[in-house]
């Protein structure tokens, strides 16, 4: 049976490789995706390349496509991440009482959970104390600088969440939950999505389509709809970053303590 599976895998892989022979060359400017089908005008990627800067004054067109032209897509990606956090919460979280000692998952751990001796705490703790502010500052740079260089809400949010995870691993889960409690990160996740949807509804109140940022110049007091789009993209990225940060830390906290945040022993 294993041999049969191997043969099937090789045949499928060979067919896929055969299919790639018809692809246009990488970066070919005359391929249909880049130049458009003859007789139907310019393609959509040509429009993005030439018109993004005129539309929204954002040099990095990936950010413009993500947050503006494909705003719905990014919004529901954020909702997907939020749903993942909710699913982890719904599956793992033990709300009251906790598990019985001896029957839970942690019964095989006979070691102390709070630290691994002085030298570990001193060396790793000092390094993390030096690193965590730098990581957080860098993640804020990534979020805010997404207009000009690669980066944006998702990446910056993940890095910011990783800094909290690093704090939880340098000390213990309880100390990190004292700083970033469950109530806080769950409400932060909701606030992120509310910020994103709020931009959409705001533009709807001003008699335009959902997530059509150009009309927001009346609210944001910018000169021209282009700058309004640019600033709205920044706001939307901040909302995405809130949700991603909170959900990353929520997933880590629930996974490592098996849902028992009050007295579970984290990683």
């Amino acid at each position, binding site marked *: 049976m294993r041999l049969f599976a191997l043969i099937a895998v090789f045949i499928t892989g060979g067919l896929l490789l055969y299919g790639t022979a018809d692809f246009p060359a990488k970066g070919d400017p005359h391929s249909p995706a880049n130049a458009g089908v003859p007789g139907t005008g310019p393609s959509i990627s040509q429009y993005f390349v030439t018109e993004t800067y005129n539309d929204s004054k954002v040099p990095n067109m990936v950010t413009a496509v993500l947050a503006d032209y494909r705003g719905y897509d990014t919004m529901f990606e954020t909702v997907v991440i939020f749903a993942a956090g909710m699913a982890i919460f719904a599956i793992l979280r033990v709300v009251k009482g906790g598990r019985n000692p001896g029957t839970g998952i942690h019964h095989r751990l006979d070691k102390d959970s709070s630290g*691994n*001796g002085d*030298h*570990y705490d001193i*060396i*790793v703790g000092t*390094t993390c104390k*030096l*690193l965590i502010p*730098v990581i957080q500052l860098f993640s804020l740079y990534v979020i805010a600088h997404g207009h000009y260089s690669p980066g944006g809400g998702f990446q910056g949010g993940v890095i910011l969440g990783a800094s909290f995870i690093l704090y939880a691993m340098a000390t213990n889960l309880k100390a990190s939950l004292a700083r970033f409690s469950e109530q806080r990160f769950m409400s932060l996740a909701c606030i992120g999505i509310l910020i994103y949807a709020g931009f959409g509804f705001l533009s709807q109140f001003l008699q335009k389509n959902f997530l059509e940022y150009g009309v927001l110049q009346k609210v944001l007091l910018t000169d021209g709809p282009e700058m309004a789009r640019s600033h709205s993209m920044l706001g939307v990225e901040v909302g995405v970053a809130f949700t991603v940060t909170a959900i990353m830390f929520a997933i880590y906290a629930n996974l490592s303590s098996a849902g028992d945040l009050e007295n579970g022993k984290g990683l």
Partner: protein
Amino acid sequence: MSIFTIIAVVLICVGLLFFLGAAVGIMRFGDFYTRMHAAGKGDTLSSLLVLLGFGVYQLNNFQSFSESWPVLLVILKLIAISAFILLTSPTATHALMDSGWEDGIEPELKNDKPETNALEEDMPQPKQKEAQA
């Protein structure tokens, strides 16, 4: 070929040499702790050297402070990467070494070898610590 390019090439070549040393060390050494030694020291120094070499090469594009500050920004970021590697790589090595000791990996001591001669038996035995609880 400017002076910066020459310095950059020299730095990168020395870095590659140390990378080669680390690679040979991780392949050939006998036990976990010596492999860790090669990995932790060689890799940190050599990535430092290569990154600084690229930073020095960027100085070729530098004309004046008012015009070419992006070049300085790139060099600053390269120095930042070097500093982080200098900080994190030994710490990770320490944490892994510590957990390896607690995980029960025995270091390969001198009198583990079968071919001990009479001269070596006279020498003081390395003290074998008990694993921490």
